């Protein structure tokens, strides 16, 4: 069921033809899509349970066009929803009925690669894998690697602060982006950050990355490039119990090893993945760990041996160590295909994304398993074990009455549990519309107001991607008011923001 979105402004809907024609003046040719048939392609993102046709979609090709679109929409009070490849799993790019959908996919060029400064300057519509593909021949790569990397765009990665299996060691998007060109709702074009580690002023780059397309439209991104490691080795380790696997993860970390990636899958996920890719995952295991180490050959061998020893002491039932890059890729194939593989077990699945302190893993899994019985919906679990980021996949059938709602309620219960044990609602997929109404589980009204005022300083009329992240739309004037602190100190005559 699509969550409640900000009610469409009737006066804007009534002006649709005028808005379309104004956009055509800015972006000529095929760049403005207004017929229902073609707009269907944009009605949802990776969270396909939620759908909404946009009023109109526009596909600009230059920063100047983006700036003109934003300035025009702003002066006319028209809302804008930005979109990259549309792979968001939280409904971050879900359109609004009265909003212009701003599609950035035509910004698909790599503008500069500078190995001396170890950076690449790319347009936001370049795919995540496209960056690595452009530099791998010279021995470099771009570290964040979300599972959707073949399709998802750098602009979308910036909006969502995307992670991936290698972020345990190499960080998320936010740790690998140095600069942006940003267009504000006013149409103003700003350069945020640059090509160095710190730049003058507040660290606005830090808040723009992960702001879910609500602060500005990114038209250029400077990313950090890393030299590819000389060698990498993966271990595939099966355990008879989840506890054994969980303790093994803790022991690896305690030994001072930060693997390049450390993933865990439960029995249902292992079996689904093995049925799908057939690469020799142990079907009898209750939990599977995939651990990758990188460095020199000698270093990889050494780390692999230490991890093997720790696995044995935690009762591992299978241990395989990759003997070639091909075998390493095979080990990963199952994990990377885990979502579609689980997708074959039921007509629909709902992917959750909480993070918990690692020590809580066995407890949380037991609770999820109990909830699964209670709700009558099966769950397959895939985790980024190294950083405690869980992806429970709830299986359901949308064609059966009430199952989607049941899956949503179950999912919300899982996320509340994550917060209850000291974790958070979302580790990498974003709040979007999906987890918007759960924000009060983690944040007080004052916490959220401090975040929303930040939005006001970028977008004072709340025209950019409204209805995402925050459960309530406040007007900026209202947010700017200073509350009376414990009834003691009113400020009747001071100027206000």
């Amino acid at each position: 069921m699509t969550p409640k979105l900000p009610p469409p402004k009737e006066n804007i809907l009534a002006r649709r033809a005028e808005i379309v024609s104004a956009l055509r003046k800015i972006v000529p040719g095929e760049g403005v899509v207004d017929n229902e048939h073609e707009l269907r392609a944009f009605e949802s993102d990776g969270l396909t349970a939620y759908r909404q046709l946009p009023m109109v979609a526009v596909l600009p090709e230059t920063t100047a066009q983006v700036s003109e679109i934003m300035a025009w929409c702003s002066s006319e009070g028209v809302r804008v929803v930005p979109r990259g490849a549309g792979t968001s799993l939280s409904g971050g790019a879900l359109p609004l009925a009265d909003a212009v959908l701003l599609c950035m996919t035509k910004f698909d060029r790599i503008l500069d690669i500078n190995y001396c400064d170890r950076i690449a300057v790319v347009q936001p519509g370049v795919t995540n894998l496209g960056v690595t593909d452009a530099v791998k021949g010279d021995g470099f790569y771009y570290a964040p690697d979300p599972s959707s990397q073949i399709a998802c765009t750098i602009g979308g990665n910036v909006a969502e602060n995307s992670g991936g299996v290698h972020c345990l060691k190499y960080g998320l998007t936010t740790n690998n982006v140095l600069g942006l060109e940003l267009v504000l709702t006013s149409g103003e074009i700003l350069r945020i950050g640059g090509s160095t580690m710190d730049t003058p002023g507040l660290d606005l780059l830090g808040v723009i990355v992960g702001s879910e397309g609500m602060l500005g439209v990114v038209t250029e991104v400077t990313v950090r490039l890393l030299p590819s490691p000389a060698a990498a080795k993966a271990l595939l380790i099966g355990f008879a119990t989840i506890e054994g696997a969980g303790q093994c993860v803790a022991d690896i970390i305690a030994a001072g090893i930060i693997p390049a990636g450390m993933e865990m899958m439960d029995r249902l996920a292992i079996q689904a993945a093995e049925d799908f890719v057939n690469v020799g995952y142990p079907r009898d295991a209750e939990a599977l760990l995939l651990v990758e180490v990188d460095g020199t050959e000698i270093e990889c061998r050494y780390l692999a041996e230490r991890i093997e020893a720790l696995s044995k002491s935690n009762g591992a039932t299978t241990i395989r160590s990759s003997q070639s890059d091909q075998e390493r890729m095979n080990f990963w194939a199952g994990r990377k295909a885990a979502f579609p593989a689980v997708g074959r077990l039921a007509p629909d699945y709902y992917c959750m994304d909480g993070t918990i302190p690692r020590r809580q893993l066995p407890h949380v899994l037991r609770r999820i398993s109990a909830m699964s019985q209670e709700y009558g919906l099966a769950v397959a679990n895939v985790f980024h074990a190294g950083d405690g980021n869980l992806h429970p996949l709830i299986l359901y059938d949308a064609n059966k009455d009430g199952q989607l709602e049941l899956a949503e309620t179950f999912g919300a219960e899982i996320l509340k549990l994550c917060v209850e044990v000291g974790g958070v609602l979302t580790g990498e997929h974003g709040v979007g519309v999906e987890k918007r109404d759960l924000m009060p589980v983690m944040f007080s009204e004052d916490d959220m107001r401090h975040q929303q005022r930040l939005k006001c300083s970028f977008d004072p009329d709340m025209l950019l991607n409204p209805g995402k992240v925050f459960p309530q739309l406040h007007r900026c004037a209202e947010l700017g008011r200073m509350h009376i602190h414990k009834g003691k100190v009113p400020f009747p005559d001071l100027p206000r923001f």
Partner: protein
Amino acid sequence: METLAPASIDELCDMIARAASSGEKLDIRGGGSKAAIGWPDRAAAILDMTGFSGILDYDPAELVITLGAGTRLSEVSKLLAEHGQELAFDPFDYAAVLDGPVEQSTIGGVVAAGVCGPRAISRGRPRDHVLGFEAVSGRAEQFQAGGKVVKNVTGYDLPKLLAGSWGRLAALTSLTLRTVPRPEFACSLGCKGLAPGKALDAQARAMTSSAGVSAAAHMPAGSLGDEAMTMLRLDGFEIGVRSRLEDLRRLLAEFGDWQPVDNASENGFWSDIRSAKPLSQSPLLWRAVLPPSSAQALAQELERHGASWFADWAGSLFWIGLDHPDIDIRAVLQPLGGHATLIRAPVSIRAHTPALTLPERGLAQLNDRVRKGFDPHGVFEAGRFMDIHNAN
């Protein structure tokens, strides 16, 4: 000047609310090690945050620590070391270089000023390791953001905004930071006598290799010593470090004779680089950040003017010492894509030279709007950075 020392969040809220209503300014202070940075003539009460000290939660296995923002850096480092861990960003105490109170530096001050050392080039700055915080904003409201786990995208990433904000948005009361295992083994390769150009080239080659260099610095010959020294640091497990060391030596052979440096000289070198000790006697001290590709040009310019300097972060960070303010460092850096912070200078110079480089106009206006969202009455704007009117 009056000092306010809140002992609780409620007291802190009251003090900020009173300041907001009376128009008084507050200068947030931890240990005071960096008090000498910025405009000297600040008419503000000191808001002493050392009452918010102590470890609130530390489970080494989680690689996460939550602690009061007023906790001393030395105490944090000691506790982490006892568990074989450390803060990845290589923080240090500015006291030595600013003649501040010794060993008083607090973690809140380190984060608020973005203090980090040589290994930040490979492991990130404080902003990359602050997971969450609690604070009281200029609105006299307590709020929190982020979380206590390493992977979190719930809500805007305010921890990054607060890191490096120099106490201009909110008074931090507690922080949650990521910790890392202390490397089992560290070793540096040193090469003596390289000219700046060659040293920077060698560092660029090292950084673009797969050797996993964790820090790279160059100390030129001349005012700082008789002989130039270029140093590359590797850390990790001993067997891995040794193998990478050999690879690196072969790779850089054409630049000179690279030798592993014994532990004592190595520690001394990195500790000096970290805290800018070699320039601690220079009347003016600048910290400049620029793209590595501009490093050669800056080095040449500095040599031409006879300035004392050394380079960290493989040429992306320069510490520059001057006897007289006769070189306009910011004018030199601007065309090179860099900027500089004035760390130390006589009062007469600090009175008219902003400590931080001001952003260009549009960005300055956005900075101003963001600040007013947190601190609409400018309670925390004591003029230290001399830019309040710049945006208008």
